[in-house]
């Protein structure tokens, strides 16, 4: 059981590292919680505490206009001891969630779905990392550590997505649908992943089952499970908050209408600060449709590699969703090592990684200049978020190129390793 030992070492190491950070720098979690790069209005732990305070005093948690997260988080966190007096249990809980996410990742990696699916088999199968390495890549990523220490609630969405995928590649399609339903319930945008996850499930079952699968029945079944899980979660939320429309408008309405323009690493806030009021509604529609339109196109183009669709869409979300944070980027980066075999085909990794490093170092500095020192203005920080998005876009585009090249080489085995040109 050598692999298991490595995995245990990775998990234990990640756990100890987080523990050490918390004990060496006791103020670090609170500092990170207040950073705009980590905490957005829809995943901030501070806002969660505000909602929790109202909830435990039997006031509607959405009354203050501060809390915009799913109501199911409230009873969950009400079980944990008060974070201001005993921060450790909450921290340990978040460490646990991180480890569980890493476990899901290693499961996905071990399934080998990334190199060989029903309709596709990569040309460079031999170049790959095992589950322990993929988990280590995720767990020791500074972005993941920062998200975990900041106790951002987007880790639950991450869990939902990763478990949906890991269950799908293992054939537990019902669990996969429930998990994607849970993720969509928490953050709305994972609903766009429904089709690729469904494809993953379908491919698994189509490969395993002897007789041909009835596609329509399969799709209807799984859609029903997905919608059922969503309905169930919404019903429970309704029981918790009491007022259905208030909670819908405070959570999903908030995601859709983007009323809070607190700076974050995304592209929306600055654009909507500058937008004429009368065009605000129109451009909200444009931005959301832009985000959503990738789902259809990528799904058709990459039909043969459903997991690759999921990864690419997560990259698109990390760039173009309304309230992105570094946790979204960390999720996308966590899926990249599954495609270790594509790394040789990528062309701009140096440039993309430089841009990401550059912006993650300069971003906090420019934010400080703008907000605290007063010697800069909003454009400073916005410029850096543009660079960040540019870096991610290059990475995403390069990654897509590599994936397509790999697919093309499978169709044209004679051209493997040759120079190619896009026409």
């Amino acid at each position, binding site marked *: 059981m050598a692999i298991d030992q490595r995995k245990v070492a990775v998990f234990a190491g990640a756990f100890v590292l987080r523990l050490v950070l918390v004990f060496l720098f006791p103020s670090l979690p609170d500092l990170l919680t207040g950073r705009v790069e980590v905490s957005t209005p829809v995943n901030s732990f501070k806002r969660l505490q505000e909602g929790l305070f109202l909830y435990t005093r039997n006031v509607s948690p959405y009354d203050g206009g501060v809390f915009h997260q799913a109501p199911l988080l409230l009873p969950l966190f009400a079980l944990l001891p008060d974070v201001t007096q005993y921060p450790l249990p909450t921290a340990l809980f978040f460490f646990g969630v991180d480890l569980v996410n890493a476990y899901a990742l290693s499961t996905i990696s071990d399934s080998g779905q990334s190199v060989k699916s029903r309709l596709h088999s990569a040309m460079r199968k031999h170049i790959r990392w095992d589950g322990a390495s993929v988990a280590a890549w995720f767990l020791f990523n500074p972005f993941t550590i920062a998200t975990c220490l900041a106790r951002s609630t987007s880790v639950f969405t991450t869990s939902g997505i990763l478990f949906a995928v890991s269950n799908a590649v293992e054939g537990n399609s019902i669990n996969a649908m429930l998990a994607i339903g849970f993720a969509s319930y928490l953050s709305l945008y994972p609903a766009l992943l429904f089709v690729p996850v469904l494809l993953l499930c379908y491919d698994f079952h189509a490969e395993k089952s002897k007789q041909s699968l009835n596609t329509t029945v399969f799709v209807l079944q799984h859609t029903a499970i997905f919608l059922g899980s969503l309905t169930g979660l919404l019903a429970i939320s309704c029981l918790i908050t009491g007022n259905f429309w208030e909670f819908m408008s405070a959570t999903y309405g908030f995601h859709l209408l983007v009323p809070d323009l607190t700076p974050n690493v995304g592209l929306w806030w600055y654009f909507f600060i500058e937008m004429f009021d*009368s065009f605000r509604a129109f451009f909200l529609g444009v931005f959301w449709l832009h985000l959503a339109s990738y789902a259809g196109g*990528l799904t*058709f183009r990459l039909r043969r590699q459903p997991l690759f669709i999921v990864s690419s869409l997560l990259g698109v979300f990390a760039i173009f969703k309304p309230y992105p944070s570094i946790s979204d980027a960390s999720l996308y980066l966590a899926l990249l090592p599954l495609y270790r075999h594509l790394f040789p085909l990528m062309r701009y990794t140096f440039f993309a990684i430089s841009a990401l490093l550059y912006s993650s170092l300069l971003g906090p500095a420019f934010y400080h200049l703008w907000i605290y020192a007063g010697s800069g203005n909003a454009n400073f920080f916005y410029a850096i978020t543009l660079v960040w998005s540019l870096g991610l876009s290059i990475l995403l585009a390069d990654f897509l190129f590599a994936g397509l090249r790999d697919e093309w080489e499978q169709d044209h085995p004679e051209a493997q390793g040759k120079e190619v040109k896009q026409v």
Partner: protein
Amino acid sequence: MSATQGDVKSLQAQDAPDAPKSVKRAPPPETSQAIYTRFKVIAAFWAVIIFLGFPIWWKTTSIYRAHLPIQDMLEWANGKTCRPVFPLEIHLMTPTMQLPESQHLLRTTQHALDDLNEFAAHHLRLKLVNDSSALNVEQREKASGTDAEEADIALTVRVLSQDDLPAPRSYLHAETTQLDIFYPPNQAPIPSSSNPPLSVFIAQELQQLYWEEKATIAHVLSGETGNLDSISPQLAESISRRFRRSMKYADTYHLSFSLFTPGSAPSSWDIEAAVQEYLAPLLNEFASISNFTIDTQVQLYASFSPMAPSPVFEETEAAWTLQKEDLSAFINAAEWPLNPSIGSGPTLNFILYVPSPSQSPLVVKENHASSWIVPQWGGVFLLNPPLSSDSTNPSHLSKDSLRPAFMTFSHQLLTLLGTPTTPSSLPLRLQALVRVRAASLLLSASSTMGSLARLTESLPSIPIPATVASSVSDTLSHLSAACTHMKHGRFSAALANARIAEIEAERSFFEKSMVGQVYFPDEHKIAVYLPLLGPIGVPLIVGLMKELKRIVATLKARRANAA
């Protein structure tokens, strides 16, 4: 963005770099499956655009323009719908005359009046009233205020005979709307005479009473007094001066009474009782014209502005004096907390200044006045209270000591609100103000309607919310109601309607969602749409064009094959 679209990509193999580059090889033919995939990808993007994008674009950028009665609005603005007229009903009582004599007097007086009148819009109509008790008249007057059908009684003229009078004489009651005419019995009108001197006298008296009001209304209606030849330049000047000094009409005025003193005393005043006793009756009379809110303040250690010249002691007067031309610097606007406006309406400031004992008494040098008016702003009163034995100001100002100040403030308030200065009867002056305000509100609401109509016609891109349309229809209905009331001499009702019309007109004109887009021409929309939609749109459109070309080519090829 285009790089993420795997759809427009196909890959072409080339030789290794060491091979000669001149040798061009055609790309390997695309499989039909790849072509089909590309078609699906492009279709997916365009499906989102067509089925979601265009409806959202249509829904969020369409401009709601409620229907406005443009023609009606313009006609109101041009004065075609309503010419304001002022038929004043005057009751004539002749307790000492026989009925035929009275009727003759009425007829001849009306004749004389019509001869004197040169301003057709404003005319006086006499009406004989038989029951002659003055008490009854007042009751009737009250009753007619509530009765919508009867015209307001502008004035009651009582013609009484009095012995030992050389010539007719008139007496105007200051507190009521009553004019008494006394005539020597020998001048009693004889039915045969066509132009009895008594009639002429009454007509002249009436003309005198309404002279300033007529001039004012003519000024309001035409913007100048030029169309009345007989108005003296002095009167015209005084009217336009009154317009300059008085506040613009507002539905609600805010009255702010402030006690300023440079020392520590007086530190309190009986302001509530004083306002209640001296001012409240006047404000009640004004209730039909405007509403009032009141606040008060006491400011101790209020020093003069360092720029203002300090008072000079005048030996001959035994008083400290202020130069008339320095009065404008008297108010220390920088340091005295005098808010320009509290709440919605404009603020009228009334300042009671108690000078320090070392500078008391303080008066204006030229005319020893202790008060003056600040045009369109308020009034100042210098109160010099009797000093106590140790030569300090009293620490409290009683209601009685405030009396002169409040009498002055009342007068200043009347002036600031634009009340005509003649005649001497306050009720008559207020009535005149009612008519003047009704006329000016009618005109201003009408012209606002006209502006709104022109605005909406000249800017087809601004939205017109339903609230604006309802405000406009409210305005128009109240305007026509005001016009009808005016025609029948019911001026209080006309004013009430005109006030609502004005409020609604202002509301519709200054509707926020409409004004926001006034300065947003169509050309700017390119600048709004293009920066984002251009980069997104170009690859999508190019992809669509290529695909359509391919489909057309395939169809042609198929047809050629078939042929």
